[in-house]
């Protein structure tokens, strides 16, 4: 019996959710080939940069940081999709999370590497990157960053893996190929009530532990900028602003991923309209918070009126960065808020449009943070502008396609929706929730001791 026949004879949840593991369409191969081609092109661009030095970028003095640092903040931001959103939904006992946590956690684990390599791509001497460990200077925010991203990657991989064990054990028992992979990853797990209880306890602890770790990661990234004295970087709001923005872009990325998965793997029964509606509401709340934070950031600079700060601010509001700035405002607030505040547009396509806008807007936000400040030093006048070179743009395209590629591959080896959690939801959710709600209702007066 082939793997396909084996899976086809299973009951609905397992049949539908394991099908991508055993059946690969031509469309998949075409997209994979396109992604491989773009990724290889990006790799070629990096080799070119290695040979010719950072002179092959569009960077200059004082525009020391550009596309790579923007993408660094952007990708690490996207990585907050998974762990943080899934952890918060788990901790909050949101029952609708069951079908979306796995796909979110996969985004985290797979995108974080593409984010973490960005500062290395940006190094003048990548051959000396190990100096960060050999000659660590503990006072440097960059070192805190290395540590917090390392910790975050470890924690979120564990947080992806542990809840996947029962599914891996099930796949192992079905005997799907490659057998060695599943029997290795299932680490001898058998689904007894006792082991399930241990597992859920671990998940419960992990979900709480990863939240402060995830917050620390983007806070420290914000501090890389905020701890310098540069105009509009030296801002107390940056830590929280970055965390909030990360969650915002993470939710948007997750909505896009869900919509694509739903379409290509026929998961309409699992990623239902209600999921997009709820995610859309999260997006709505975050876009309002984003507006509030952005307003707070800019109004303090404007009212304070310090000369160096104002030069940077006005370059964004009315100067040479007005286009990316106001496009960012449109993409992060007007479009998502406008679409998500009405139930009629909180549909699959409505949330996807809003999410694409948010992803673009959040990339622009990082551009608007990195570039205008760089070009407005306190001392001296900068006459330069920043135009990324083909090398930078190719590497950026390569990292985007690289992430999409590994995500596509991941869906071919692992069920992208947690099978056991869906089944558990079918079995116990309704009674659990009814019990919970019953617990909220007022008690009978006679039974209450005063």
């Amino acid at each position: 019996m082939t793997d396909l026949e084996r899976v086809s004879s299973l009951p609905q949840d397992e049949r539908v959710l394991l099908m991508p593991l055993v059946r690969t369409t031509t469309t998949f191969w075409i997209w994979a080939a396109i992604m491989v081609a773009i990724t290889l092109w990006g790799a070629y661009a990096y080799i070119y940069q290695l040979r010719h030095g950072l002179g092959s970028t569009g960077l200059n003095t004082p525009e020391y940081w550009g596309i790579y640092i923007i993408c660094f903040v952007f990708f690490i931001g996207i990585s907050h999709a998974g762990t943080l959103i899934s952890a918060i939904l788990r901790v909050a006992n949101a029952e609708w999370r069951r079908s979306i946590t796995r796909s979110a956690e996969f985004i985290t684990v797979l995108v974080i590497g593409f984010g973490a390599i960005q500062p290395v791509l940006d190094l003048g001497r990548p051959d000396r990157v190990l100096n960060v460990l050999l000659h660590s200077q503990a006072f440097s925010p960059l070192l805190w960053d290395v540590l917090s991203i390392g910790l975050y990657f470890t924690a979120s991989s564990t947080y992806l893996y542990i809840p996947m064990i029962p599914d891996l054990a099930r796949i192992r028992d079905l005997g799907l190929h490659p057998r060695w992979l599943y029997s290795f990853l299932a680490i001898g797990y058998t689904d007894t009530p006792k082991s399930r209880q241990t597992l859920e306890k671990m998940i419960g602890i992990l979900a709480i532990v990863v939240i402060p770790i995830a917050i620390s990661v983007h806070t420290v990234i914000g501090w890389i900028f905020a701890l310098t004295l540069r105009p509009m970087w030296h801002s107390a709001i940056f830590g929280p602003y970055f965390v909030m923005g990360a969650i915002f872009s993470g939710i948007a990325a997750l909505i896009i991923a869900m919509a694509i998965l739903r379409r290509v793997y026929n998961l309409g029964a699992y990623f239902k309209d209600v999921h997009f509606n709820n995610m859309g509401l999260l997006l709505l709340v975050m876009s309002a918070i984003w507006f509030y934070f952005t307003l707070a950031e800019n109004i303090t600079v404007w009212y304070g009126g310090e000369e160096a700060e104002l030069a940077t601010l006005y370059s964004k509001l009315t100067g040479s960065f007005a286009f990316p700035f106001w496009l960012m405002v449109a993409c992060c607030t007007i479009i998502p808020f406008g679409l998500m505040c009405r139930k009629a547009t909180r549909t699959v396509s409505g949330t996807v449009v809003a999410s694409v806008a948010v992803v673009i807007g959040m990339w622009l936000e990082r551009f608007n943070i990195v570039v205008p400040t760089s070009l407005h030093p306190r001392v001296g006048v900068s006459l330069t502008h920043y135009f990324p070179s083909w090398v930078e743009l190719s590497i950026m395209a390569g990292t985007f396609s690289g992430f999409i590629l590994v995500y596509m591959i991941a869906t071919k080896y692992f069920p992208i929706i947690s099978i056991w959690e869906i089944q558990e939801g079918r079995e116990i959710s309704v009674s659990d929730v009814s019990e919970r709600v019953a617990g909220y209702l007022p008690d009978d007066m006679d039974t209450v001791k005063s």
Partner: protein
Amino acid sequence: MARWGMVIDLDLCNGCQACEIACRSENNIAVGGSQAADENRTISWMKVHAETEGEWPQVRTKFIPQPCMHCDRPPCTMVCPVGATALDSEGIVNQIYARCIGCRYCANACPYLAKYFNWHSPSYPESTLPGLNPDVSIRPVGVIEKCTFCSHRLQLAREQSKAEGRPMREEDYIPACAESCPTRAIVFGDLENRNHRVAELAADPRAFRQEEGLGTHPKVYYLSEKD
């Protein structure tokens, strides 16, 4: 312990840029040519900024020579993840070219733009090759470099005075820029030594430092122009 510092009298500076040239040849600064200039990637440890005020016929140009400020509280050293830049015991902010990973965090942290990055491999016109200074190492592509107050001259001066069995004199250690200044606008010495002219000038009522409000405590003082 000495605390090396510099005073630049803006009244005496006539913008001749001899300090820039002296610095370039003393410290083997790469010659980027017009391409580097177009790309804003030139390196100039000592740079004479010109600020033009007013409109014709009432035009005034101010010249402000700008080396590294050698801050006593340098923002650049704090952020370096590998300790490749540090404040030494005599107040000089140094740079270890062999350790620098080229992240450019220090360059971003410096409010004075005194840190320069090697975007390309250093290049020198054929004619300047015989004149390269054997006391100063050439920086490879991908690292940060900066003004060192010609600290190699300090080493030489120290060795010299030791060999001659005498204490170091004020004129023993002078950076190339100060040495070459035809109007003697640049004065260098030990800010802690009352006998050094630099200590006296730094206490002058005309003395100020760039961006003093940032709390970086620069050791390069300027004497403002008398109107």
